[in-house]
């Protein structure tokens, strides 16, 4: 589900539940947050996320945890209390010695694993939905990105038969051109998807089509990968600039079809 490794997620949640139940100490919570997040990134996903990305998240988390722990004199005192007791009380002497040996051991192991780790290709972040331009010119026709809508969408209510024709034409366009990458069922998992990086957009995803205005989708279809700003790493995208191959009507029709197929509505004007 959502690309998550369920057993790992459940175990992590269970440990969290245990901490709640036992009213765990602040320090235990801080450790749980850090180690749990690390474990989640490392083992929680079916397809592991790049280590560089995980490292950035973990660094932010450490900062947040430190900020939380030191946000008040009392909280700070409470957080470090168990550490102080470990160091000062003679009955914890054995545990302290163990810790003094274990932590350098861990650091040594980490350094060793780092040095002998199989190499990864460098990974770079990219904007999934890069900011669109204010105006879009396709086939000599300029539209205002903020206000433009799919010109055939209103037929859904005004003229269902005509709407159906546009959807059917969009279906033709989609299965003549798009499904190799975006998939028969539009899960972004077409037969060529495994060879592409970034992977093709998943139109089943509630975070994609319903979150976008149809003008945004029109922009992405018409201008494709090459029309993206640098933040979207246009050089990696296999998305063609469809204005070179399709008529404006065909592009709006396929736009209509992918919404219709998934049962989604474009994000309306001014809706957030």
């Amino acid at each position: 589900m959502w690309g998550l490794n369920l057993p790992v997620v459940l175990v992590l949640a269970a440990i969290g539940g245990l901490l709640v139940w036992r009213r765990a100490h602040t320090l235990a919570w801080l450790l749980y947050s850090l180690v749990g997040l690390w474990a989640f990134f490392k083992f929680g996903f079916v397809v592991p996320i790049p280590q560089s990305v995980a490292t950035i998240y973990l660094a932010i988390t450490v900062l947040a945890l430190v900020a939380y722990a030191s946000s008040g004199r009392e909280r700070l005192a409470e957080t470090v209390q168990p550490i102080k007791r470990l160091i000062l009380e003679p009955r914890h002497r054995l545990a302290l010695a163990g810790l003094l040996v274990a932590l350098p051991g861990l650091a040594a192991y980490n350094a060793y694993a780092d040095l002998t780790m199989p190499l990864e290709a460098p990974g770079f972040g990219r904007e999934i939905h890069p900011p669109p331009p204010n105006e879009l010119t396709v086939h000599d026709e300029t539209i205002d990105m903020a206000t433009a809508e799919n010109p055939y969408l209103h037929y859904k209510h005004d003229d269902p038969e005509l709407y159906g024709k546009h959807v059917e034409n969009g279906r033709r366009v989609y299965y003549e051109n798009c499904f190799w990458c975006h998939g028969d069922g539009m899960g972004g998992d077409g037969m060529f998807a495994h060879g592409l990086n970034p992977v093709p957009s998943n139109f089943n995803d509630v975070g994609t089509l319903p979150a976008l205005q149809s003008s945004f989708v029109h922009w992405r279809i018409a201008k494709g990968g090459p029309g993206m700003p640098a933040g979207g790493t246009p050089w990696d995208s296999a998305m063609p600039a469809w204005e070179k191959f399709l008529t404006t009507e065909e592009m709006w029709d396929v736009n209509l079809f992918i919404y219709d197929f998934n049962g989604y509505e474009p994000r309306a004007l001014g809706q957030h």
Partner: protein
Amino acid sequence: MTAHARRRTQAAATLAAAALLVALPTSGQVDLGTEEQRAGGKIVYDKYCGQCHGDTGDGNGYATPRVQPKPRDFTTGTYKFRTTPNGTLPTDDDLRRIIEIGAPYTSMPGWPNLTSAEVQNVIYYIKSFSSAFENPDRYAEPIDIPRPLESTEESIARGRVVYEEQGCAACHGEVGRGDGPSAPTLVNDKGDPIKVADLTQRWTYRGGPTKEDIYRTFSTGLNGTPMPSYADSLEVEDRQHLVNYVHSLGDADDPNYGTLITAVYSEEPIDLQDGETLDALFESAPMTRFPLVGQITEPGRNFFPSVTSIEAQAIYNRDEIAFRVRWHDLRADTSGRNNPSLEVPMWDEDNGIGGDAADDSGDSDDFFGDFGGEEAPPEDDFFGDSGDDFFGDGGDDFFGTADAGAGGAEFSDAVALQFPASLAPEETPELKPYFLYGDAQNPVDLWFVNLTYGVADTFRSRGSDSIEATEADIVEAVTSYDQGAWTVTYKRRRSSRAGVSFAEEQYTPVAFSVWDGFNRERGNKRALSSWFYVYTEPSVEQAVAGPVLRAALIVLVVELLVVFLVRRRARQQAADEETAAASLTATEAPAV
């Protein structure tokens, strides 16, 4: 009547006919579902299946001209993947299996989003397209699939003997790479070209990669294709040995695609002419497999590329770097022409392959004909008469001549490595040239080898419409074709004034293109990859002990410091409190 309405009428007629039949007495196996179930199936079918299999089930959907293998024509009642004997109908479970998991490396995906009931309904609906399913005589019990034998050396050796005796190599090739002499001529009963399975790449088996899958395939045959059933000609045990042999030809169920070539350092000189030493050098370098897909972004759209992956490795010494790439191709096309900028149409309407064969298979009524018994004689004129125009600047007349068919080699096999012309600036390390032949601002260099000549040509490309031959970089290459596998080894000096240099510990973007002349791939019609990386591993092996000890020591020092500070502070506090208490006592004393 609109097409839509016509379809609806046809479907209604089919449903009515099927409904009538349900009322007839049926054998135990005829189960066509209820009208309601078929109607439910139609809804699922129209949404998810009709675009390829056709809204009337005839295998003629929107996508059909652009996919290979062709979508199943449900009106024939012929199905490839069955547990039932050759020529009989599949069971519902057979149909369910393909619907749920799909057929890998074809345009048939799995449909895990459908519920079990939806799948059953769509099975009933699909069966209603062919009257074969109404005929009890066409059904048969599934075959027994015994537990696989252990893959012992003896079993595999016996399997090899069976492989030879049964003539498997005629299509699948001597070592199973799908390169047998008949491979280029094969078509199914509709006249569409059939790609022979590459037995060394289990993940591409249409019917599945397990030993049970393999046993099933040659015990039941693939109806409608040249793959026969060996149920009658081979004992169960021999089939099991054959399974073990076929299984031994590949080393993994998964392709294990990678993202990085690690170039390994060597002191030795790299001599392309000294094959043995070169092989030994490459032995030390890890091999990475990269996925290839069709170029469908620009004109020359290649919807069904022949080659689906390429393996690559690299070595380097003080001055030079060498790359070796390897891929499987059903035959060596070494007589035609090819180069990265050869003109191509938007896409080949008739892809050309199997063209001749399609003509003489006009009557495709004989679905159950014995394809396996008599193989079509292999074309002995592979390098036929198309070699007249190697240097011509043609390219306008792709559809004109007939020799583009199965025997022709109008276009040669080719391969290219692609590197950025220069590395990304440090402030924008993610910047790369457009992966499709570069762009105006960020050109790429192509190390192109036309396998007709077997030498490397270099091109500087600023996009598919701006590709120029260069001579600035001298790239050498040697090529070989052995039993269905092309191997191309490149060499260049590591540093270059005109192109990218390969410094130690550097990640250099690299991408691949492969052209199969047989599939009429040329110019921008090619199989290609995304950007991946080459990493030039440090020449001096990094010491491990030093950094490990240092890490441990630093942590230990920090720990001891913390313990020391905390304890000192505690002692001070205690001392302060004592003093305070003492002074308190002192000051209070007089008052008492």
